[in-house]
């Protein structure tokens, strides 16, 4: 039993599109897993199957709790322990950075307190600490829209950390960033994984980043797992198997 267990997991969207087909695999606690594949291969869907944001069938057990068929409140409880980071950051641009980070605490704070904006001091402390962990605390009282892309993604990471999660899902976290910032953000994620032992699943588009930071690699093609193994075993042939073509400079973040 890992921390996440997929058993015959499929995802079928309301329009009839089957984005994930019979995936069975297990992810152990503290792993740093990179998922690669062409766009449309089901990477984002696989991540969203973990916290039930997509219609899942089969079985997904997260930290001992079943996602498929979970009630609304059960699903909320699962999601509260799973932080998520997005390609487009998904910050509330008009809100202050601290308020964005505090959104990660919503599931832990009584409704009347969050309604009035009277955050308990220990929750504020957690939010500030998560901002410190990604080195952005000096911007705590700045509007999120006033930050650069890299800074915004750090706030996104801080929001996920503020949940004090067991698992972090990162959906293409660097796809909207330039190469230098991409490395910074990947380092942050790697460090969080190492220091806090948070199980981390990352979708990546760039192969060199996957190779540089990943430990375990899952390759998806057309909704199926076509590779699952140690990053050290990955060579160009494996990539060709996942992508169905040779590697081009477009697949690399450092195009040299």
């Amino acid at each position: 039993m890992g921390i996440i267990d997929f058993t015959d997991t499929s995802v079928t969207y309301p329009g009839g599109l089957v984005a994930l087909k019979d995936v069975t695999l297990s992810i152990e606690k503290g792993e740093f897993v990179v998922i690669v594949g062409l766009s449309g291969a089901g990477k984002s869907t696989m991540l969203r199957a973990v916290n039930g944001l997509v219609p899942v069938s089969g079985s997904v057990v997260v930290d001992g709790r079943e996602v498929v068929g979970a009630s609304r409140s059960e699903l909320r409880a699962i999601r509260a322990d799973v932080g998520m980071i997005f390609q487009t950051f998904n910050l509330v641009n008009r809100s202050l950075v601290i308020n964005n980070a505090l959104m990660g605490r919503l599931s832990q704070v009584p409704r009347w307190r969050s309604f009035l904006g009277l955050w308990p001091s220990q929750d504020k402390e957690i939010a500030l600490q998560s901002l410190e962990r990604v080195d952005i605390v000096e911007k705590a009282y700045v509007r999120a829209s006033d930050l650069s892309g890299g800074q915004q993604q750090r706030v996104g990471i801080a929001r996920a950390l503020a949940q004090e999660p067991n698992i972090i899902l990162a959906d293409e976290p660097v796809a909207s960033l330039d190469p230098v910032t991409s490395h910074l953000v990947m380092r942050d994620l790697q460090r969080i994984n190492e220091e806090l032992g948070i199980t981390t699943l990352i979708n990546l588009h760039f192969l060199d980043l996957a190779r540089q930071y990943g430990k375990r690699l899952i390759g998806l093609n057309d909704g199926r797992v076509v590779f699952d193994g140690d990053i050290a075993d990955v060579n160009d042939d494996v990539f060709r198997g996942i992508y169905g073509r040779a590697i081009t400079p477009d697949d690399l973040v450092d195009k040299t």
Partner: protein
Amino acid sequence: MTLLAPETQTRPVEPPRAATYLLPLFVGIAATGLIGFSGPIGPIWGTLVGLVTFGVFAWAGVTRHWIDAIILVVGGILGLSFFNGVIAARTGPIDFKLALLAAVGWAVYGAATGFVVYRHRLEYRPSIIGLQALSWGGGATIALFTATAMGVLAPLNARQISAGEIQELTIGLFVVTSLAAAAIGLGANLSFATKLISLFAGGVVLVLTVMAYNEIQFSTAAIATQLGRIGEIADDFWPPVWKWPKSLGQPDTFNIVRPFIETFQIAIVGATIGNILALPLAFYASRMTAPSNVAYRIAKGILNVVRTIPDLVWGIFFATAVGFGNPFAGALAMIMFSMSIMAKLLSETVDAIDIGPLEAGRASGASHSEVIQYAAFPQVRPNYVAYALYIFELNIRASVVIGFVGAGGIGRLLNERRNFFQWDQVMAIVIVIFVSVLLIEWLSIWARRKLV
């Protein structure tokens, strides 16, 4: 491809422009209207109409050839003689069959214009001839029919029509047809069937206008007359009287102040509570933030019905329920009024928000209402503030008038003075309203600019 001349093989066919056949349609309507009144003098009118059309063609650069002038004049004489023959031979009011028959004359003329266009514009297919015939004939039918509906043609036998009325009718027709042409011109790049719909819409506009014009007894003559005696009328209203006795035998006092303050209070209570109540409704009435499809439909339905009811009807309704003359009724009415406008404006704004933060909120395990409060509302907060100010401004205006139905405020005073025919006192109240409405509007615009 074989239909096209060799030199145009690579060019696409220019789609017929609405104006090409609609212009004659409206000329036809106007001319039929005029001729319908002036008796059977077909050949003369036919010549004139033909020459006018030739003039339009020459101006538009279609043709300046004398043969075309002859074609048009001959077509005009033939068509209009037929038309006038049918009209002159009628015994009763014009019914649809007769209108159609008479319109055949115009259709003949339309065909002549279509032929001229076809001769000179290679990009048009022969169907332009039929198209023109159709539009001229259709225009004439519509014209005859509306004229009959207005009671202008039929009562030629029954009722005397003044020259003023005919003039008004003609002016009205011209105004309306040009409006319709503008509206139809918008559809110029669309398919033929779509244009037919536009044509139909133009007809509806025309008929509705003529009927409405007639039904409410619109009269430009009355406007002209009354404008002439504006001095007399002004004497009733001017100078404004600011003080009058509250009841008989009492000294003159400023009686405007108290109801004026009351109006403000009604507006404040209405805007504050209405804007707060609108919040949940607005988020439920947007697909982005509705918790479920059922909730969305219900919220949207409530919103639509509440919005349908005018502010004054709310005023009447609550005044009847909680007692006439009670400003509480006014406040209740303003709550409904503010709520409906805010909910509509805000829900449309919410439709356009970034959905990303909502997903992030859901992914963190937040409940639906928490997601709305922390991920959706901050995105629309500046709009909410701006709308709230705007609604306060509207409320001042609206609470002025709901007093008329017994919902308190300055409107009640205005109604009372009006019923006593104290026009100079009415003027004083109107000035107060006018100035305060303008001031509030400027203030609100200034504040909105500051805030956003």
